[in-house]
Structure formats: C-alpha cells, structure tokens
C-alpha cells in the first residue's frame, strides 16, 4: 500500500502535470516540435555560418552602434541613478519628515515600476524621434523604477547613531544627511549603479529593436534583410560586449564593497 503522503504527492504531481499540458495545448506549444522540426534550426545555422566579420571594418555604422549602445547604458544609468538617489531621500522616513511628500514620491516610483518598458520606449520614440536618445530616456525611467525603492530601503537601514549624535550637537537636517547618511550609503549606492549599468546594457540591446538605436537596431536590420552571416557576427559582438561589461562591473563592485560582500 502506498502511504498517504505518497498519494498526496502523486496527486499534486498529476494535477500540475495536467495543468501544464492544458496550458501547452492552449498555446499550441509542442516541446517535441523543437526536435522533430529541428531541420529548420539546422538550415538557419547553415545560413548563419561563417560569421561575416567584415561588417566591423567595412562599415563604420557597426562600430558607432556599439558605442551608442554603451553610451545609452551609461547615460541611462547615470541620470536614472541620480534621479533615483534624490527620490530615495524624498521617500525615506528618516530623511523626509513630511508624510505627504513621502507618500507622493512612493506612489510616483511605484507607478514608474509598473509602466511597461515597451510603452515607455514607444512613447519616447514618438516624442524625440527614433534613435539612441529615446533609448537613453527609456533607460532613465526604467532605472528610476527599479532602483529608487532599493535606495530608499538602503537609506532607511543606515545606522541612526552617528546621525543622532551630530543632530544632538546642533547639526541641521541637511548636515545630518551630508555627514552621517551619505558616507554610509555611498559604497552600496555606487555598487548598485554598477549593477544597474550591467542590467541596462542588456536592456539597451533589446530597446534597439523598437527604434532605440544601437547594436540592437543593427541586429534587427540585418535579420529583416536576411543577412544571417551579419547576424551571427553581431551576436558574437553582443556576447563579448555583455561579458566584458559584466566582468568590469563585478570587478569594480568587488573593489568598492570588498571581497565576499557581493549580494
């Protein structure tokens, strides 16, 4: 006789398997198709090789698009991070005495969090025209949305002792922020910005496809004119770029936070 616990587990397993199966049928998704229809992938791979690296030196637009993607990620992180920094002080309970301001800021930040990046980029493409500037603005919004809340939590978690000490000897609220809170949060602020740069770098590639410019746009163009050899070359460039940025960001974060403190 199977035990009660075994029966329970078996039921849960069966129910979830059926739900997954129904979902797959609903979406017309057949995982086995990946293997039965694999000749499509083979054909594609055949067309993709060998990568055409001539686009790197034949056409200056590739080099410029790489620079554009890096610049988009950099500017988006910098401005988004600075705005998020200011907003975080307005939303943290230990730096902002007025509850109304705190709540307005928090609601504003959560609004930015839930607005889909796709809408942001489509609106900015209409507002400032397609190109990397609309990508920068989108990244600014996305960065504020994802990091303002984190910075608020960091500010709220600082040790209150040093601040209270200088407050008790007559420091103003701004002086408390300047001499007690900022020195405490600066390392984790910079480390988070480096992480944001890494994330934004990947996002910048995606945004290019919707008119944000940069290497994502080049990739989309090469794909839509069926130049698959260029596509392969661009993908390898993207992989190298992402790995380099990730390694750089990891290295700098380790130097700032010290070994072993990486979250």
């Amino acid at each position, binding site marked *: 006789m199977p035990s009660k616990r075994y029966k329970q587990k078996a039921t849960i397993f069966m129910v979830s398997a059926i739900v997954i199966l129904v979902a797959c049928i609903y979406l017309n998704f057949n995982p086995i198709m990946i293997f039965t229809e694999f000749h499509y992938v083979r054909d594609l791979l055949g067309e993709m090789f060998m990568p055409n690296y001539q686009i790197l030196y034949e056409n200056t637009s590739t080099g410029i698009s790489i620079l554009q993607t890096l610049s988009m990620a950099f500017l988006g992180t910098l401005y988004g991070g600075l705005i998020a920094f200011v907003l975080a002080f307005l939303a943290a309970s230990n730096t902002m005495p007025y509850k109304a301001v705190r709540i307005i800021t928090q609601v504003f930040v959560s609004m930015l969090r839930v607005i889909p*990046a796709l809408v942001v980029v489509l609106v900015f493409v209409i*507002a400032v025209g397609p190109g990397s500037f609309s990508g920068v603005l989108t990244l600014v919004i996305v960065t504020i949305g994802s990091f303002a809340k984190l910075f608020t939590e960091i500010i709220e978690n600082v040790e209150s002792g040093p601040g209270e000490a200088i407050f008790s000897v007559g420091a103003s609220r701004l002086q408390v922020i300047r001499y007690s809170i900022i020195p405490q949060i600066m390392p984790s602020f910079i480390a988070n910005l480096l992480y944001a740069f890494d994330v934004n770098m990947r996002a910048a590639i995606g945004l290019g496809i919707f008119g944000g410019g940069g290497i994502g746009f080049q990739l989309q163009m090469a794909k839509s004119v069926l130049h698959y050899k260029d596509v392969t070359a661009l993908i390898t460039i993207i992989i190298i770029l992402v790995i380099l940025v990730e390694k750089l960001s990891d290295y700098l974060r380790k130097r700032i936070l010290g070994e072993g403190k990486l979250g």
Partner: protein
Amino acid sequence: MKGQATYSFKRYRKFVLPLILLIAVTEGAAIVCGATFDKLETGIVKGLSFLQFMFPPDWAAFKDMLEPAFQSITIAALGTIFGTILSVVFAVLAASNISHSWVRNTARFLIGLERSVPEIVILLLLIAAFGLGSMPGIVSLTLGCIGMLGKLLADIIEEIDPAMIESMESLGANKLQIIWFGVMPQIIPNLVSYALFRFEINIRLSVILGAIGAGGIGYELDYSFSMLQYHRAFTAMIVVMVMIFCTERLSYMLRKKFKVEGALQ
C-alpha cells in the same frame, strides 16, 4: 578657501579627478547618442501632448485584451516552469561537489554563455527558424531562466554541507539518490523563491517578446501603437500595468511565506 580647513581643496582632491573623468565620459556619450537638453525640452512637450492623445482609454476594447493578457501570463508561467526544471538539471551538473570537474566546467560555460545573450536575441533567432507564435516566446523564456537560475542554484548546491553528502555516500546511496533525497530538499526554499522572482521578470519580458512576435498582450500593445489606435493602446497599457502589479504583489507574498535566509528579497 584658505582658513576654512573643512572645505580645503586637499580634502576634495581625490574627488576632482574622477569627477572630471565622469563629466568627460558623459559628454562623449551624450554626443554619441545625440542627447541634448533642447531635444529633451521639445521632446517632453511633445510627449505630454501625445499622452493627452492617448487619454481616455478605450474601454470597449477591454474585453479583447483579456485573452491576450491570459496568453502572456501563460507564456511567462510555462517559460518559468520549464526553465526552472531545466535550470535544476544544469545547476546539479554545474555544482563542483556533485559533478566531475569537466562536466562542471562545461555546464558553467553554457550557463555563462546563455547569460550573456539577451532573451530578445534568442527570440529573434527562434522566430527566424520556426516562424511567429508562442513557441519561440516560451523557448526563449525557458532558456533565459537557465542563465539566471542555473547559476544561482549551482552556487547554493556548492554551499551544501559536504558531511551530508559523504554520510549518504557511506550508506551506499548512488548519485541520483544523493541528488533527490539529499540536495533537493535543501534547495527547494531557494528554488521557489528564485522561480517566483524569475516569474516577475518573465511577465515583463513576455510583454516585450510579444511585441516582437510571441503573441499575447505585447502584440496588442505594439499593434495598437502602429495602427495609431492610441486609446486602445492605453487600455492595453493599463492591463499590462495591472498584470505587473499583481504578479509583483503575489510573488512578494509567496516569497515571504517561503522565507529563506539569503534568498532574494
């Protein structure tokens, strides 16, 4: 500044050079991107008047949005489920205390390679191979999971107390038994927490992937924009916002329930 010791140049010197460098890089980046404040000013005016255009939402289209939204959620859920299962396999292969070093290095290399390819690029390739549809979307989200969850879980498995594995080995358990009865129970809380976190990301991604050709609400959104039906686009946007908000809340609540130390907050 002489006489005022606290504000002396000497004290701020180590900030000046990095600051100049930062400003120079920012300027360079701004030139490359064509970013100017004039452009921003006219852009904001234009963008705001455009937002007025979108208002009010077209509530009649609301019921047309429900099925695509459900499709998007299903795509994200299936991608997360398949991705989590696959990433457990990859994590076990990539853990140094379970696998041979060459298996481990290969698995780590594959995970790292996947991590550095954005999901959108995978989707573009899959669409080139298989055509439009939900299948490329699900597969690219599945693969996306491996890069993130595989690495996190492998690190957790490597931190498991070696005494546990040795004691199971000494009792004659084989590799599969060690993995199933020794490793799995220990990583389940983290696994659930990471999978929920990834589900949040996948919901956001499924909207973007949908616009490129995976179907669902993202497609509705992009289509309404390109057909200049802005009121309809606004409705789709509200549906997406509700979707993102609800998943975030739900995942937060569930993760709180499976409270684990060191898990993502």
